[in-house]
């Protein structure tokens, strides 16, 4: 177990470095800069802005400075003994730098404000996705070939096929305008969570439903399940203790990266429901050429995906004794 985690950590460091490097190069090779706009800044103003953020340095120097504090002289951050007039500590010091677009904030500020919101919304969606998905998958598997199975599978196909902005618009029309049960948009109470949570979770629920059904159908025909039934165990216990843990493995594998996606929010859902989460930063930071914010969300996403995949591997071995961490 410890060896497994250590190995994972080493790979994690390597992956993160690769992601940072590739994104840095990609981001900087795109034309246009953070300060170009339809109303151009006077040349000298743009030059002094670029100087403030060291965008006038050669690219390799900017890259090194982004990774760690290059400036170790008198202008270095105070925790390195400088006067802080060049306060950027670098990624290794946990400092993601200033945002070029949200000029009053650092990237750390932006993420600290928006991530809890996305996490809360994502948890609710995950709850919808897993709850609705697994439940309907079980029903489908048990009633295989029946009408209920057909109806649920149709619904699941629809859920996957419909983009979430359509689901969101329908949900708003139905539950916020025709029957004003929930607010049309905004953030600030638990009621604000329901519609976006549902809209964000719907496609995932549909996927989970199909995976659960497939997994269960396969497991239900296995010998050990037949043995359990033959022993005279009540059907729910067979399902709960024997079939479900193995039948859910594909769901679990899928949920790892899917959770990272759900938790970091969605641009579309956040815009439609006016939710100040991280989702919009993934797209807008690239459009705005907000280099540091774009790098920040990329790093965040990498960390989440990696952590969740590791968690999934751990849980999988716990659920299925046939798997072992050494192979994972």
């Amino acid at each position: 177990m410890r060896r497994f985690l250590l190995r994972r950590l080493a790979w994690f460091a390597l992956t993160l470095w690769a992601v940072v490097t590739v994104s840095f190069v990609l981001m900087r090779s795109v034309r246009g800069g953070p300060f170009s706009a339809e109303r151009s800044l006077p040349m000298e103003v743009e030059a002094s802005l670029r100087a403030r953020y060291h965008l006038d340095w050669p690219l390799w120097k900017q890259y090194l400075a982004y990774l760690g504090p290059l400036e170790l002289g008198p202008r270095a951050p105070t925790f390195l003994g400088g006067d802080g007039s060049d306060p950027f500590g670098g990624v290794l010091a946990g400092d993601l730098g200033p945002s070029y677009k949200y000029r009053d904030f650092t990237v750390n500020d932006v993420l600290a404000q928006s991530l809890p919101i996305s996490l809360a919304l994502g948890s609710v969606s995950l709850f919808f996705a897993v709850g609705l998905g697994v439940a309907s998958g079980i029903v489908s598997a048990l009633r295989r070939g029946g009408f209920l199975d057909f109806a649920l599978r149709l619904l699941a196909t629809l859920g996957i096929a419909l983009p979430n902005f359509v689901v969101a618009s329908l949900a708003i029309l139905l539950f916020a305008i025709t029957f004003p049960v929930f607010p049309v948009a905004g953030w600030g109470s638990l009621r604000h969570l329901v519609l976006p949570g549902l809209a964000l979770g719907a496609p995932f629920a549909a996927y989970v439903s199909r995976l659960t059904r497939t997994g269960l159908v396969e497991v239900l025909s296995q010998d050990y399940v037949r043995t359990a039934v033959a022993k005279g165990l009540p059907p729910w216990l067979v399902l709960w203790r024997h079939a479900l843990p193995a039948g859910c493995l594909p769901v679990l594998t899928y949920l790892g990266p899917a959770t990272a996606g759900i938790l970091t929010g969605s641009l579309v859902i956040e815009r439609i429901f006016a939710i100040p989460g991280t989702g919009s930063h993934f797209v807008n930071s690239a459009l705005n050429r907000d280099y540091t914010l774009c790098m920040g969300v990329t790093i965040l996403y990498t960390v989440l995906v990696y952590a969740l995949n590791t968690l999934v591997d751990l849980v999988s071995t716990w659920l299925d004794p046939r798997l072992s961490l050494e192979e994972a």
Partner: protein
Amino acid sequence: MNGEGWRFARRAFGLLLFALLLALIVRATTSARLERADVVFANGAEVASLDPQAVSGIPEGRVMIALYEGLTTRHPETLEPRPGVAESWDVAPDGLRITFRLRANARWSNGDPLTAQDFEWSWRRLVAPETAAPYASFLKSVKGFRALDERTFEVDFPTPVPHFLHLTSFHPLFPLHRATIESARQRFPDAWTVAWMRPGVLVTNGPFRLAARRINDRLRLVKNPFYWDERAVSMETIDVLALDHLGTLLNLYLTGEVDWIERVPPLAVTRLRGRADFHLTPSLGTYFYRVNTTRPPFDDVRVRRALALAIDRRAICEKIARKGERPAFAFTPPNLAGYEPPELEHAPLEADLSNWDRAFEADCARARELLSEAGFGPQDRPFPRFELHYSTSELHRDVAEVVADGWRTHLWLDVAFFNQESKVYIETQRSLGYDVSRSSWFADYPDASSFLEVFLSGGENNRTGWSNARYDELVRSAAREANPETRLAELGAAERILLDELPLLPVFGYVTQNLVHPRLAGFFENALDEHSPKTWRWKTEEELAAERARPR
């Protein structure tokens, strides 16, 4: 531990995790809870900064006039300069000096007195290169400024600057609280330069102060008790929402969660048009195309003129923009006080455009003549294929299609499209890597110079390669001219040159589109789409009844 114990521990652990998750959700949602503000408005995208010297957009401007106040302010309807922090001013007879007299009761939101020294310090900060202020050039026309005492502020000019009082009403020249900025820099040296703008730290001098802020969500403003004209302010709290999804905006307005939205979905315009709370007003913005005058055949003025004539502006206004926009035949909009913009030569039009089709046909015939004079036509050499450049947006695409269609059918030109993501598109314009490119310009203050300075030779917003010495001379001399009539005449002569030479093809004038709660009083429509919440108040039941009784 036996099997039972393990199972219990596992369950307890699971429950604990679940409880933690639940706590996180509740905390993340409810910690954000704010009671509904007295008035809520949507302000487009998140404002770039709360530093009035660092910003340049319209949404930023709206927040600045709520938080800060300059020596002068703009009248909410006519936009004429009125006393602000300065209760009066004297303009020297030769126009070379303005002396502002500050109010004795002008104060900051923390109670500190607001003095002439504050203005002196703030203006010095504006021109300091490390501030990197987009409008640092505002003080280029100034020879010097100084605080004579706490309440007297003097500004000297090498030549008269008649529109200077418009500039002092605009946010770059608003005062900043020196002590806060300097102490924040000392206390949080690591926090870049932004710590002084945090809620609870930011000190401002306007009718409102900052209470809370969340990125991409809202600014919560509360009434500033130390504001000199505090009694005129009736709203206690204001929420400024950072929202730009048009459908969401309309939903929020229609369900009463927002009291004013500044843009509506284009598809909803037709249905909203009859409503009394929907206001469309011509704004100080022009939609136009730049022409790359360095690239043949566009270096030939006859070609540019032909292109300008064969644009079906009415179709663009009525079928695409659809908000009551007016076809534009000039760069400056028609609603600038005292200024009569010249127009590019075209067939005369009735005021209601009833003869549009005939006039447009005549213009297209003229355009074909111009092209053949330039040596292009079915019998002469063919016009080379060229590209119409625009940034990614439905509006720009649709307008480009009408324009290209006109040039294809009426002038038999081979027009292709060249669409780019907006930042790349700007780079292409700057490097003159286009043939004809879509653009827009909005004025900072209601004066023709705010438009005409764009096309000065080598200016960073010119981006056409066009330059004309006579034009530069006229615009520069107008900036120095004390006599308002001579000044406007010079600007008019400059625009005449611009419209004869046509480095740009004007298309239409923008309109503002405000959906405003019918109970909100003190909200005025104006060409800058600037709305100071200082004058806002809710109408009483009696006023509403009286309004209903009045025939509309």
